[in-house]
């Protein structure tokens, strides 16, 4: 019986992690399109939205998609990663369910990472120049793998914290 209660607890933690991750992903994606929209309306807030994304993206206009006449808040590759992340979140429950805490194998990680790593290195060393559509595609492929690390990892962290709290001397009689 306690095992069943523990499984139910794990499932609940999984669900909470999943809902928070999905909401955060949608909010983050929304901001990417909000920045050019605000700029097209000459809103001063657009600079703030662009600034939020600046630490995690170079924001070079030639490497970004345009919307409402202005570049998105992140480059094509980053847009791909975040769209891929959302795709991975949609696929996660169908692929893994809510019970098992497991990660993709190292082989799968290397296979999925190979296109984005090769393309990034090639562009960086000026060996070739790929169009934005290709950058977006490599981003989507890689981004789709990330929720398969984030959801079980954060769930494991939360379950570990719950167990620690239950076993701490202050909660024991």
């Amino acid at each position, binding site marked *: 019986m306690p095992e069943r209660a523990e499984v139910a607890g794990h499932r609940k933690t999984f669900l909470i992690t999943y809902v928070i991750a999905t909401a955060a992903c949608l909010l983050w994606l929304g901001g990417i399109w909000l920045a050019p929209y605000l700029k097209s309306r000459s809103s001063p807030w657009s600079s703030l939205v662009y600034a939020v994304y600046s630490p995690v993206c170079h924001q070079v206009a030639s490497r970004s998609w345009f919307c409402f006449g202005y570049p998105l808040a992140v480059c094509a590759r980053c847009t791909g990663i975040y769209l891929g992340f959302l795709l991975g979140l949609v696929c996660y429950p169908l692929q893994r369910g809510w019970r098992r805490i497991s990660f993709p194998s190292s082989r799968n990680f290397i296979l999925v990472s190979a296109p984005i790593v090769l393309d990034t290195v090639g562009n960086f060393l000026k060996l070739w120049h790929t169009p934005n559509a290709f950058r977006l595609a490599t981003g989507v492929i890689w981004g789709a793998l990330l929720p398969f*690390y984030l959801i079980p*990892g*954060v769930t494991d*962290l939360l379950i570990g914290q719950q167990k620690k709290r239950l076993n701490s001397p202050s909660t024991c009689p």
Partner: protein
Amino acid sequence: MISERPGMFKPALICGLAVGVLTAIPLVNCLCCLWIIGGAMVAAYLFARTSPAPLTPGDGAVLGILTGIVAAVGDAIVSLPFENMNREYVQKFMDQFSQFFEDMPSGWERWFEARAGGLSPAWFLLGLLASAVVYAAFGALGGLIGASLFGKKNLPSEPPQGPPV
């Protein structure tokens, strides 16, 4: 409250500072969020190499969060000199640009004047806080990937049992 395991801070500090510097330098920062994720993966590798116990996914996440926070601080400090350099470069470019085009957006000169005063401490801290949150999230992701790749340890085999008495 999330707690860290002993020995976590050193790899987080080394990798976080390296990531902070790399993300702040113009041109090198073209790898975007991949620097932070990669840095947290390296931190997980360094920790797993020295720690006798296996690195759990939760440990990887905590290590990644620490790396992200250190990277945000490093980035904020290293970015300061580049902030002025970028501003001067853009100002020069816009001055030249305005000689060729008469239809410059209204108020662009005012925008530069407003920014010329430098970054106020309040804005600096707000920016640091925002980037710390974002970097910590990406760092956690990198730490989790690192834990899955390098966290497994071969458990010591059971001691041989003597013959039954």
